[in-house]
């Protein structure tokens, strides 16, 4: 609260100065105009320019100061920083007032500022990506200083359990310490993703084929929003469904045919994740199938091909880049999916290909590392960033390939709405 008070006063004063700037500048401009001098811009534009001249530099200065404080750790007293900003605001106000004269292009000046502000907003998205990269890469590097990178990508044992002892300065006792071999995590991730894709690709693609090629308009009008509902269900809800309904069901079924299944089996989250991804695949595939020119279908039908042959041999191959792109996007979704696996998959790293056994994934371990009461720079916490880095790289690659495929499709058939 101590910081908040001077900050609030700063805002208040700045706002007051801004309002002052607006009205005095407008009055002055109106007067100049009334005296018969032709001006380049409207009084309101001069007024807004004065406001920008007052508030802009002041806000910039205070933001810069705050940033320097945070980034370089320089110790600038908050009070003097804000005071300096206010002084700057006053100077800006004075400058703004003197510029209220006939031969000054206030409108152009404002629009230049607006343009810069808009461009500034556009950089936020870049900064977000950079922020993700920096935060993840930075911490991941810290992690790799503690544990070898090679061990991380080839090790088959993930046992961070001992690391907190080391962090607590008792590492000597726990000989061998923690092991961070990520292979079982990635194996689990890809295995569950594979199950999801095995559900989502056929169901999604065939649904898209039905909607695009067979469905009467009325069915389509119902089916499209229905699939959108499927896409709008929060993942935490899917996770609950997987854990509380699907997993016990699978255990019962497995039991009835004499198989032993864990309640945290990989099948349940895999299937439910597949259901979640169906709409991603079906909706993009549907768009792509609709974009395949009708002349292609007619050409095939006119040769005496059945409708099924036309779809299988002409429409689907023509739409293939788009379908692959949709599947890759769905796959990247599945790899990064967190809640379903956190709630329904296991915690124990396990290298197996039995889908009825418990398995864990990268995202589960990230969450586990982040929710414990650990120091931020303990090896286990940092390992989450190393896992996140790999996840980032893999999904980025999938997304880029997907974008390239869809672009190729778009160029081929000159469709613009994909």
């Amino acid at each position, binding site marked *: 609260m101590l910081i908040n008070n001077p900050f609030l006063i700063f805002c208040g004063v700045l706002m007051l100065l801004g309002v002052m700037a607006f009205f005095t500048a407008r009055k002055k401009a109106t007067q100049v105009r009334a005296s018969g001098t032709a001006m380049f811009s409207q009084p309101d534009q001069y007024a807004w320019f004065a406001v920008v001249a007052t508030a802009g530099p002041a806000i910039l200065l205070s933001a810069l100061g705050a940033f320097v404080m945070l980034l370089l750790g320089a110790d600038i007293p908050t009070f003097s920083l804000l005071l300096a900003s206010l002084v700057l605001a006053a100077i800006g106000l004075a400058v703004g007032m003197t510029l209220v004269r006939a031969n000054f292009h206030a409108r152009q000046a404002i629009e230049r500022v607006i343009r810069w502000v808009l461009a500034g907003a556009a950089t936020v998205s870049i900064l977000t990506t950079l922020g993700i990269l920096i935060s993840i890469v930075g911490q991941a590097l810290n992690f790799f200083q503690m544990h070898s990178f090679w061990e991380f990508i080839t090790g088959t044992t993930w046992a961070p359990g001992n690391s907190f002892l080391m962090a607590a300065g008792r590492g000597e006792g726990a000989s061998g310490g923690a092991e961070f071999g990520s292979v079982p995590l990635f194996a689990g991730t890809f295995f569950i993703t594979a199950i999801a894709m095995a559900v989502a690709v056929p169901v999604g693609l065939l649904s898209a084929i039905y909607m695009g090629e067979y469905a009467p308009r009325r069915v389509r009008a119902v089916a499209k929003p229905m699939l959108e509902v499927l896409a709008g269900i929060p993942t935490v809800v899917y996770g609950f469904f997987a854990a509380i309904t699907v997993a016990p069901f699978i255990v019962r079924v497995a039991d009835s045919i004499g198989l032993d299944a864990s309640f945290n089996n990989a099948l349940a989250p895999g299937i439910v994740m597949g259901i979640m991804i169906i709409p991603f695949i079906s909706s993009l595939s549907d768009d792509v199938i609709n974009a395949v*020119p009708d*002349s*292609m*279908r*007619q*050409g*095939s*039908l*006119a*040769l*005496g*091909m*059945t409708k099924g*042959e036309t779809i299988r*041999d*002409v429409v689907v*191959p*023509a739409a293939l880049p788009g379908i692959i792109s949709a599947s890759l996007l769905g796959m990247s979704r599945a790899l990064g999916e967190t809640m379903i696996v956190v709630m329904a998959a296991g915690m124990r790293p396990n290298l197996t290909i039995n889908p009825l056994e418990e398995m864990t994934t990268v995202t589960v371990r990230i969450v586990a590392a982040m929710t414990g009461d650990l120091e931020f720079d303990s090896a286990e916490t940092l390992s989450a960033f190393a896992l996140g880095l790999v996840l980032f790289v893999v999904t980025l690659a999938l997304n880029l390939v997907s974008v390239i495929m869809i672009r190729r499709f778009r160029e*081929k058939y000159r469709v613009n709405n994909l």
Partner: protein
Amino acid sequence: MKSMNSQAPEKVDQQTPSVGQPCTHNDSASHDLSIRVRDLNLWYGNEQALSNINIDLFQNNVTALIGPSGCGKSTFLRCLNRMNDLIPSVSITGLVEMDGRDVNAAKMDEVALRKRVGMVFQKPNPFPKSIYENVAYAPRMHDLVSRKPEEDELVEKALRDAGLWEEVKDKLQQPGTSLSGGQQQRLCIARAIAVQPDVILMDEPTSALDPISTATIEDLMDRLKSQFTIITVTHNMQQAARVSDYTAFFHLGEIIEYNDTKSIFSNPATQKAEDYITGRYG
């Protein structure tokens, strides 16, 4: 006008018993019936697009369908291999008879029909496959070939017949879309003849092509008529005069005049056809 409807002028009517038959004898052309059309009406929803079409189409001829745009010639053409089935709002009455069978009958398999009545479209539409596959695909599906050498032979023959072989024989594995527009259209013709149909429908096959490609395709039509019955829609009067043996003039969904090409162009029986042919409207 109704009484004129595509029937022969009265003075020669007695020589030609069947309704849709052209009036004058064309010695060079065959007179074996290929498709017989009687009282064909077609509606798009509530809008009548074809009314009372009566026409006999003859084997191993090129029949040109001409007329101003929107007169129903393409619609009529698509009735012959039931491509209009693809448009849900279409309803059809009347008879389209081929090989003694009603094409529109419920029992008629439209796939079997289209195997015998092939089609070439206005814009070339090769499949997104290799040149070879474009041609080989349909015969393979129709079980016309059983072994690879047979297939190669068929592809080569179809491409030769379409006059494309020399140009593509070294790049059969390249995508069909890599060819030029005229080549693509000939590829589509090769694709159609590889199925060995009886009839080939051509819906303004040269309208999207340059003059040189157009001339090549016209030559091709002339050569192909010894093997196939060709029915072509065209906007281009000269083309109809050049390539066809018979010409039917469509206007507002009706056949105004149907005759052998020489007669219809030199001595049209109706004022409308004359106006159209001499370029007074169209």
